[in-house]
C-alpha cells in the first residue's frame, strides 16, 4: 500500500497558506491550469530590477498544487530571477529524475514533495506553480 505524503508541512501550507491572496501591485500575472484535474492557479509576481520582491497565488486545486505553490513562493520571494529559475530547475529535476543532497537542501520545505515522483498522476499538481513561474520568468 502506498504511503501518504500528506504530512503536516504539506497540509499546513494547504489549509493556512501564507501567499494565497491578491497582489494589486503585481507586474506579472499568469494563469496555470491542469485541465484534467481542475487545478487552476494564478501566479502574481512583483519583479523590480530583476528581483522578485513580492509574489502571491490565487485559485483552486488539490492540496499538492496549492501547498507546492505556497512553498515555492516562500523560496523565491527576495531572490533574483536567475536564482528562482535555478530553484525551479532543481525542483523539476527532483521530481523527474534526481538531485544531489545539497540541491535538495536548497529547496527547503519544497523538498518534501520529492516522493511525488512515485505518483505519476500527481506530478503535474506539484509542478503547476513552478511551471507557471518558469513561464513568467522566461518571457
Amino acid at each position, binding site marked *: 500500500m502506498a504511503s501518504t505524503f500528506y504530512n503536516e508541512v504539506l497540509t499546513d501550507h494547504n489549509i493556512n497558506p501564507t501567499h494565497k491572496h491578491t497582489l494589486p501591485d503585481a507586474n506579472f500575472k499568469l494563469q496555470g491550469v491542469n485541465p484534467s*484535474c481542475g487545478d487552476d492557479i494564478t501566479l502574481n509576481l512583483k519583479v523590480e530590477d530583476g528581483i522578485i520582491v513580492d509574489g502571491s497565488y490565487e485559485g483552486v486545486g488539490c492540496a499538492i498544487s496549492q501547498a507546492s505553490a505556497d512553498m515555492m513562493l516562500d523560496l523565491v520571494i527576495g531572490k533574483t530571477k536567475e536564482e528562482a529559475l535555478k530553484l525551479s530547475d532543481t525542483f523539476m529535476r527532483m521530481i523527474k529524475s534526481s538531485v544531489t543532497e545539497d540541491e535538495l537542501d536548497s529547496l527547503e520545505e519544497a523538498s518534501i514533495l520529492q516522493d511525488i515522483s512515485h505518483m505519476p498522476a500527481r506530478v503535474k499538481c506539484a509542478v503547476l506553480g513552478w511551471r507557471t513561474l518558469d513561464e513568467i520568468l522566461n518571457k
Partner: protein
Amino acid sequence: MIMDNQFVKDFPILADAEFSYLDNAATTQKPSVVLEAGRDYYETSNANPLRGLYDLSVKATDVYENARQKMADFIGAKSAEEIVFTRNATESLNLIAYSYGMNFLKPGDEIVISIMEHHSNMLPWQNVAKKTGAVLKYVMCDKTGKLTADMLKSELSEKTAIVSIAHISNVFGCKNDVKEFASLAHEVGAIFIADGAQSVPHISVNVEDLDVDFLSFSGHKMYAPMGIGGLYGKKEILEKMPPFLYGGEMIEYVTIEGATYAPVPHKFEAGTVNAGGAGGLSAAIDYINGIGFEKIEEIENELTKELLCGLKEIPYVNVVGSDDYLEHHGIVTFTVDGVHPHDIAAILDSDGVYVRAGHHCAQPLMKYLGTPSTARASLSFYNSSKDVNRFLESVSKLREKMGYKD
C-alpha cells in the same frame, strides 16, 4: 451486512487482496472463467475467424459467432445479426455517429442528449453537429440527476433526428426511463440510443422491451476482457447504414471501382476481429447468468445502502445525486469540504481503498453541478461490507489527515 462474499474467490486479483476495489464503474475485475476462456481460445481455437476454409478457422469463427448469439440473448435482441462487436461503448457510439449521424443528418436537424452524458456520448454528437450543420441540444436534469419525460419532451420536436441518453448515469448512478424516452423520440420520428455501459453489467436489460434503436456497452465493465464491446442496433436501421470502417472481411465483392458490402453485422466489423475477447465476453455472460441479476442486484443494492447511509453520517461529506440508495445502482459520487477529490483518492489509496476522482469524463456535468471534480466509489457484487467499512473508515479520517481540527 455481507461480511464474507462467496463470489470474491472467483476473481484471482481479489482473492487475497489487501485492497478494496471500489472503482467498478471504471472497469470491473475478471473472474477465472473469463481469463481461462480467453486462454482456451488461443490454446485450442485460434485462427483468423470468418475467412479460413479449414477446421481451426471454423472453430475460431464458432467462438466468435457463439459469443454474438450469447450477447443477443443476454440483452433480448431478436437475432445475433443485431449485435455488432466493437472495442467498447465509446467505439459503438462513434460507429452510430459516423455511420448514421454523418450520413443521414442535414442542416437544421436536431440531436438531443442530456447534460449527464459521458464524454463518449457527447463528443461524437458535437462532431456530427459541426460537420452536418445539425443542432446539438442538451436536456438538463435536476441537481440530483433526475431527468423526467417532461424535461425531455420539452426539447423534442419534428426537427429531432437523434436522442441519445445514458441508461444509468456514471456520475449519479440514477437510471433513466429509456423505455419512455424511446417512445417519446419515436413519436417525433427520431431514433433513440441508450448508452448501456453502466446498466448492462448491473441490471437486466431487454432491448425489445425498452424498444431502443441502439444500445452501446463495454465488455470490460461486465467482467469481460478489455477491447471487446458492442452495439445493439435494430436490424432494419443497421441495414440502411453505410459501413463505419472499410477493409477486409466486410465486403462481398470488390472491384477496382468499388465494392458491395457484407450483410449486417459483418459490414461493420472490418479487419481481424477480437475473437479471444469475444470468447471472454461469452464466458462473462455465462458467469453473470450463473449468479443471476436478482442476486447481483440484491448484493449491490445492500452494499450501496450501507455505503450511502454511512457516508451521510460523516460530517463535511456531500453526496451527489439522490438520497434514495435504490437510485444509485452501486455508484456513489461525493465531495468532502476542504479536501480536493484527488487528495481524497490519494489518502483512500494509502488505506488500500481504490476509488475514482476527477471529472468522470463528464466535465459539462461537473460545471453544471458547480464542482470542478468529485470522488466516486462504485460497487460490484463481489464487494463486501468489509470493503464498504474500510472505505467509510478512511473517509471519516480524511479531514483529520488533511490537517483540519474538526
